[in-house]
């Protein structure tokens, strides 16, 4: 390796910089995982994510994505073994109306009212998505990442992200529309 090559390598985060990174991003990682797997699993995965990030910080290249993209990528990777559990929780939510991961929200308490039945429809539709598409949807909806950031996080082409998200949104829209039309016919 030449001196030039050494100079081009990104500087490795020191402990103070890493703790600052943790303080800045741990809530985003926790929130993203908690929506998918609940707070207890989220605590474990969030801690493991930053542990892994610290251990592999020498390979982090800021030019290939922001720190939060890096961390969400690690977290998404760690959630793979929980994929079946996630689907089950979504299906239980859809079937019983009680969110297994959080208590029921109180729609209408603030902001525009979103019928509880619609949330169940969303849960059911999400449960039928394949894992990779669900990753895209949650990174977009729960982590507020842009298409480019999702592509970086999942090492996908941006076109793939767009098409997966587009198909998923159509399915979710269709599920909610079906529910609304049923409610309309009941009134």
């Amino acid at each position: 390796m030449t001196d030039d090559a050494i100079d081009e390598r990104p500087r490795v985060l020191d402990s103070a910089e890493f703790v600052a990174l943790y303080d800045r991003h741990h809530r985003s990682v926790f929130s993203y995982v908690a929506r998918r797997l609940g707070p207890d699993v989220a605590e474990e995965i969030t801690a493991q994510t930053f542990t892994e990030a610290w251990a592999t910080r020498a390979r982090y290249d800021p030019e290939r994505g922001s720190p939060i993209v890096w961390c969400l990528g690690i977290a998404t990777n760690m959630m793979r073994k929980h994929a079946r559990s996630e689907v089950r929780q979504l299906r239980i939510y859809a079937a019983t109306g009680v969110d297994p991961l959080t208590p029921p929200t109180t729609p209408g308490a603030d902001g525009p009212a979103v019928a509880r039945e619609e949330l169940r429809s969303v849960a059911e539709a999400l449960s039928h998505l394949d894992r990779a598409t669900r990753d895209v949807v949650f990174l977009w909806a729960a982590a507020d990442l842009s298409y480019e950031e999702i592509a970086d996080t999942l090492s996908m082409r941006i076109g793939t992200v767009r098409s997966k998200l587009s198909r998923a949104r159509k399915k979710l829209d269709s599920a909610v529309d079906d529910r609304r039309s049923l409610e309309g016919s009941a009134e």
Partner: protein
Amino acid sequence: MSDNPLKAFRASAAELDDERAERMRQRVVGIVAAEEIGTNPPDTANQDRVSTGHARLDTPLRDYPLAPSSTRRRSQAPAFAVLIVVLALIATAALMLARHTSAPSADEPKRLPDLRSIAGTADALPDQPLATGSYQYRRITSGSQASGRPVTEEVWVAADGTGLVRTAETSGTLSRSGTTVSPVHEDTDIASTRHFGGWFYEDLRQLPTDAQKLRATLGSTAGGNLSSAEIGRLATDLVSWTATPPAVRSAAFQVLSDVGFAYVDDAAVQGRTGQRWVLNDEAGAHFVVLDPASTRPVAFYDVPPGVGPEIANATRWIVYEAAEYRPTGGMTAGHLGS
């Protein structure tokens, strides 16, 4: 795209409370500090493991002390399993030997409760079909360790599936009083129907009275392949409704027995007492608290692995507060009264 439902779904995520945040920070900062003290270099030896510098879905995770390698665990798992089976056999044999060799005692412990005896009680209860114009009513309160905001939900469901739902945070004022429930359609079945409380009246009346068939029906609900604990949860929901026929109710308790719920103790949960039963699996301990006399559930809650068996520490919980036939009190479907 109507993003609101998905955004609202996102908004319902558990918030990070201070205690949990502090626990996580100590853990991560502790590891960082330990490596600093030990002057261990960062992992630069295996640069090609993640060539992009980012996590890849096809990249194995680092074998880190806090996250034991799944490969290593897999390699040790068979040995542990054999050891556990051998120990269990030895313990069982010792217990049987002790029972056969010891003299009968005057203080013989009383017989432990049996879910099948509750099934027998359920079978002998009178059937309570729903009268025309009446509603099945149920009130449950649910919460989780993370939220600290229990929510009470009241549901009125008529025989045709129409009805009302009313939810309120128990610590606050009523914020939503009602909405419509879609009617059940002739071409829908239990496995594909979304509805309040899990069951419409006609569903409840037509469920199998054979325990094995009922277990299969419950297991195919919500997309199928449900775990024993999830089937137990649905069975618990099933027996919480007044309109559930005695024979179906009886079969549901046999299902709870068949999937492996074991008696723990008589417990008080949220001020209500009952028999506490538990099913343990890899996801933790799943508790159901039952009133053996009425054969109604009192509560259902889950405790993750490594957490004490107290409801205050439960991941999530549901308390069944009331179930009966009740009018809607002047509220009509579609009318948002206050």
